[in-house]
């Protein structure tokens, strides 16, 4: 805010701050913005300037069997991995915040490690573990591994939310006659929902644009959208990739908005 008591130097700084903030935002969003117009380009090369408007790459995306399959795969793997990560991560956080016990720090570290360890290593390691068991090239394995990558996010957000949770509410519910299960679903879960939802959002995003582990674990049958884009880039650089990317971006934005709305709603309930 510009106010009348500012000295000229302060005014200059005020604008400098605004301009640098704007440029930073632009820098972050630019790659995303650049790809969208290309997906509507008439020409068959991923370059500017645009040569005309067309939906042909979208047609291509929704008619080529390998793209359709990758879309379907993403819609199987990401939601399944998210649900798994959400359930396991939430349970783990509740266990980890309830009281002190030996080895708590180590367990926390192990659960968080998929986020810290370079993803290539996770990919190689999971391949070396699952391949001898004949479990590579399977949806189950891919979902499990993506869930493992998503769990740390859920743990971090849910644990943070639980810090502000009043544990006397759990006691009050028990005192009023609710079993531990009822208490969890009727009291604890609704109150920590903002954390669970945020964690789930991160877990979904992690799985939805995951390439590296998928490269190691998924066969052609299980190729997800990002995996298909990756091979598309190497094999034939067609603007279909731009269309797929635009679709991903649009979907992510939609997801983000929905979840943010849900989160905001339960946050309001919680603090009203």
């Amino acid at each position, binding site marked *: 805010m510009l106010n009348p008591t500012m000295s000229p130097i302060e005014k200059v700084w005020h604008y400098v701050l605004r301009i640098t903030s704007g440029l930073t935002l632009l820098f972050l969003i630019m790659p995303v913005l650049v790809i969208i117009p290309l997906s509507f380009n008439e020409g068959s090369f991923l370059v500017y300037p645009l040569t005309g408007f067309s939906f042909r790459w979208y047609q291509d995306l929704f008619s080529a069997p390998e793209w359709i399959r990758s879309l379907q795969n993403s819609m199987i793997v990401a939601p399944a991995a998210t649900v798994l990560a959400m359930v396991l991560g939430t349970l783990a956080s509740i266990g980890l915040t309830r009281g002190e016990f030996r080895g708590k720090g180590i367990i926390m570290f192990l659960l968080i490690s998929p986020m810290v360890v370079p993803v290539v290593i996770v990919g190689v390691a999971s391949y070396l573990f699952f391949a001898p068991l004949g479990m590579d090239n399977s949806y189950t394995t891919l979902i499990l591994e993506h869930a493992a990558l998503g769990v740390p996010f859920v743990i971090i957000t849910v644990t943070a939310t639980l810090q502000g949770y009043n544990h006397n509410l759990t006691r009050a519910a028990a005192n009023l006659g609710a079993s531990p299960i009822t208490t969890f679903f009727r009291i604890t879960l609704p109150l920590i929902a903002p954390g669970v939802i945020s964690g789930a959002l991160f877990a979904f995003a992690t799985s939805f644009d995951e390439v590296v582990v998928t490269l190691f674990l998924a066969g052609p049958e299980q190729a997800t959208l990002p995996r298909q884009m990756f091979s598309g880039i190497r094999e034939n650089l067609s603007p279909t990739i731009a269309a797929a990317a635009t679709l991903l971006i649009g979907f992510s934005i939609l997801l983000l908005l929905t979840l943010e709305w849900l989160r905001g709603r339960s946050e309001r*309930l919680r603090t009203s």
Partner: protein
Amino acid sequence: MAETNASDILVRFKNVQKSYDGETLIVKDLNLDIRKGEFLTLLGPSGSGKTTSLMMLAGFETPTAGEIMLGERSLNRVPPHKRDIGMVFQNYALFPHMTVAENLAFPLKVRGMDKTDVTERVKRALSMVQLDKFANRYPGQMSGGQQQRVALARALVFEPQLVLMDEPLGALDKQLREHMQMEIKHLHERLGVTVVYVTHDQSEALTMSDRVAVFHQGEIQQIDSPQGLYEHPRNTFVANFIGENNRLHGKLLSRDGERCTVGLENGERVEAMAVHDAAPGQPVSLSIRPERIKLNVAQEQNRFSGRVREFIYLGDHVRIRMEACGNSSFIVKQPIATLDPKLAVGDVISLGWNVEHVRALDPVELAE
């Protein structure tokens, strides 16, 4: 105390001990019978083990040793949600994501009560605490006093035979607190439910309770009616904790049944009730309530002289600080009506008290 029939007992603590760290006992060998329908207060300074005792009764802490009985049933292996004991938590613990009506309906719904009964009971509970218009509010939209009432209604709505309250009025301002004290007391009288109430506020305990158990360092020092505690404290801790008292130090000279003679350090002798079991020559501590002291007395026994040091005017009565019996801040409480208007600072007058009103107690010097 009157003999109590076993069937009048609702809760029984039998040799209950509690330690959190396996070393120090927070509750030491607690034996306590709570009668059906009574209002029992656990009173004691902070850290004396009141909350711990209450939590063991509610089932949130397990006794290290001993047994707690509810009626005929041992509670040791009963989880909290199967105890059917209502509780008002210190900070209310209302569910913030539920409206007032939903909060009250919760204990009824988890018991599988059908919908029309739930609505009916919730309505009755709300009007009991005069919150009929607030059914659809969220707790966050209400004042502290209103939330307190909701918590009270929620603890009573499922008609438990026993309700526990842990410093439920601690967060309210003085006026509201006194109002709620009366409201809780009247609810108790009307519903006939047994209440176990925890507080560190002695005046709250005295106004509300049928009986008060005074806690100190994990032990019950005395359990009695408010009047019994005030008039007949059994030891120095209780005498000091409840109400005001003048303390004099001396040695027991002789004992004659209920009464004894105590020699003060300045050579004066006091006739007192022998409460503490001391042998002649052993130190004792005398306790006298300021309102029991009479001025300008003509009696033979327990007549002393003192010098007036200060007047503290309090409207309905005057507190007079005197130097008497070797104590330089000996407090005398005089109603305005009986105060001699000519009395002035520096005057030397006689003072005295009846033998029944001075008690020879244990000599412990309390570390404050």
